C-alpha cells in the first residue's frame, strides 16, 4: 500500500496493510533548511490517513486523525482570518493504516521512556519492525499533557525557533487522542533530534490540537498499533 501524494524525499516504509511516508524533515523545518511543501488538498479523499506536520509560512500544526485534518494556528491580533486559505505543509509524516490492533494499558505512564517501554514490546508482538518508523494511536483520560505550535511570527527560520518561537498549551484531566510516529533512526527527520517520538494530540472535544511534548497517564489508556496483514493470519 502506498499513496502517491507528492515528490516524496524518502521511500515509504510499507507492509501489506499499512505504510508510513514523509515529506521534508523536522530538522530542516526547525533549522530553516531546504523545504518542499505540499497543499493539504492533495490528501483529500485518502482514506485511513493519519498525519502530523507543520504548516508552511504560518505558525501552526497539521494533525490528521482518520483523514480528518485539524489545523492549529497561532494568529496575530491584527490579522483577519481567510476562510478560503489553502493550507500547505512543509513537513509532513503520514501513515495509511487500514486496521488497528488495540491494547489497553492499565498503569500510569509518565515519560517517553515509560511509553517506549510500554509500546515497543506490543509493536514487536504485532510483527512490526521497530527499527523502521511506525505509527500508533493512544487515547484515554490524561492527567496532564503539554505541547505547542511551532510558530515564527516573522516567518524567519533559524535554529533558535524551537526555543523562542513556540506557543505552548497545557491541559489537565482531559480526554485526548494522540497520533504518533516512532523512529529510532530518523531523528531530526521524522522526530525531534532528542526523541524517537513525534506525536500530536487532539482533545476529544476537538478544542485543542497540536504538537505534543509531554503526556502523563495516571489511569491507563488505549494503544492502537497497525494490525498485521490479514493474509498472514492462520
Amino acid at each position, binding site marked *: 500500500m502506498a499513496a502517491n501524494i507528492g515528490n516524496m524525499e524518502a521511500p515509504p516504509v510499507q507492509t501489506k496493510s499499512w505504510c508510513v511516508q514523509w515529506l521534508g524533515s523536522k530538522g530542516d523545518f526547525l533549522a530553516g533548511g531546504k523545504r518542499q511543501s505540499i497543499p493539504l488538498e492533495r490528501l483529500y479523499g485518502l482514506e485511513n490517513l493519519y498525519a502530523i506536520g507543520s504548516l508552511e509560512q504560518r505558525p501552526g500544526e497539521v494533525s490528521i486523525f482518520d483523514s480528518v485534518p485539524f489545523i492549529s494556528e497561532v494568529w496575530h491580533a491584527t490579522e483577519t482570518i481567510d476562510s478560503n486559505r489553502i493550507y500547505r505543509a512543509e513537513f509532513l509524516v503520514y501513515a495509511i493504516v487500514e486496521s488497528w490492533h488495540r491494547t489497553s494499558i492499565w498503569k500510569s505512564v509518565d515519560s517517553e521512556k515509560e511509553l517506549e517501554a510500554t509500546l515497543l514490546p506490543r509493536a514487536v508482538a504485532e510483527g512490526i519492525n521497530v527499527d523502521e518508523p511506525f505509527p500508533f494511536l493512544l487515547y484515554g483520560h490524561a492527567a496532564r499533557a503539554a505541547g505547542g505550535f511551532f510558530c515564527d511570527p516573522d516567518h524567519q527560520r533559524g535554529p533558535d525557533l524551537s526555543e523562542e518561537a513556540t506557543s505552548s498549551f497545557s491541559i489537565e484531566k482531559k480526554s485526548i487522542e494522540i497520533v504518533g510516529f516512532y523512529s529510532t533512526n530518523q531523528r531530526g527527520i521524522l522526530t525531534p533530534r532528542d526523541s524517537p517520538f513525534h506525536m500530536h494530540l487532539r482533545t476529544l472535544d476537538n478544542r485543542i490540537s497540536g504538537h505534543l511534548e509531554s503526556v502523563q497517564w495516571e489511569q491507563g489508556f488505549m494503544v492502537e498499533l497497525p494490525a498485521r496483514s*490479514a493474509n498472514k493470519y492462520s
Partner: protein
Amino acid sequence: MNQSINLGGNRVESHDWRMEWIGSQKDFIAGKTKEAISLERFAGVQNLYAVGPLERGRGEVSIFDSTPLISKVNEASVNVTVGYGYRAGFLVYAIVKNWRRATVRIPIENEERLGEQLLPLAAENGIDIDRPFPFLVYCYIAQAEFHILCNKSSADYSPELHEKAKVRFPITDKSIEIVGFYSRHHRGVFTPLNSDFHMHVRTLDNRLAGHLEYVRWRQLVTVCVPRVGNSFSDGTDDNRSNETW
C-alpha cells in the same frame, strides 16, 4: 481466530473475531436464569469485549479490552470497580483482535441514525450485517443516559423487579467509549426486546459505566468494527438457546 478457547456460548465467528452469548435477556428478566455466569472463566482471555447485567440485577458488567468494569449503585451514586470476581445474569461477548475505524462527521441523534452510519461501514468491511457483530464507539458527547440495575430485593427476579431496579444517570459533555452488539435477529436474546442494539458506556475517566439507553453525538465520532479476515465460518445466526445449540 488464533486464540483458541471454548467458553461455551452460542457463536458467530470469522477469521479475525468471534462473538458468543450465554443465557438470554428474556430468561434473565423472567427470573428463569438457570445458572449465573462466573466472570472468572474469562480472566486471561485477551481482546475481550462484553456486556450484561450482574446476576439478580445487582449491577452491570462492561468489559472493554479484557478490563471488566463492574458498576453498582451506592447511595445514589455510581460505583465502578474492576474485577472478574462477579457473576452475570446473561452475557454477550466478543473477542476481537483487530478493528477497522471510521470517523462519522455528522450529528447522530438516535439509534436509527447510528444504524445508518454503522451498517454501511460494517458491510463495506466485509461483515455480514444479517448476523450479529460487535462494535466500538468513542467520542465526545453532548448528552447520554445510562442505567445500572440496583435490585436489592431477595424475591425471585421478575419483569417488575427489573424495571424497578433501573437507576438512571445522565452524562453531559464527556468523552465516552461504547462497546455495543448489533443484531437484527436477537431481540430478547442479547438485545432488548425493542432494539437491535445492546450497548454499554464508560466515560474515559472510568468514573461512570453502565447500560446505555440514549446518546446524542454532535462532534466527530470514531466507530470501530471488527476487521474481517479471509475466510468465514459461523456457528449460528438465529435465536436458538444454549440448550438447542
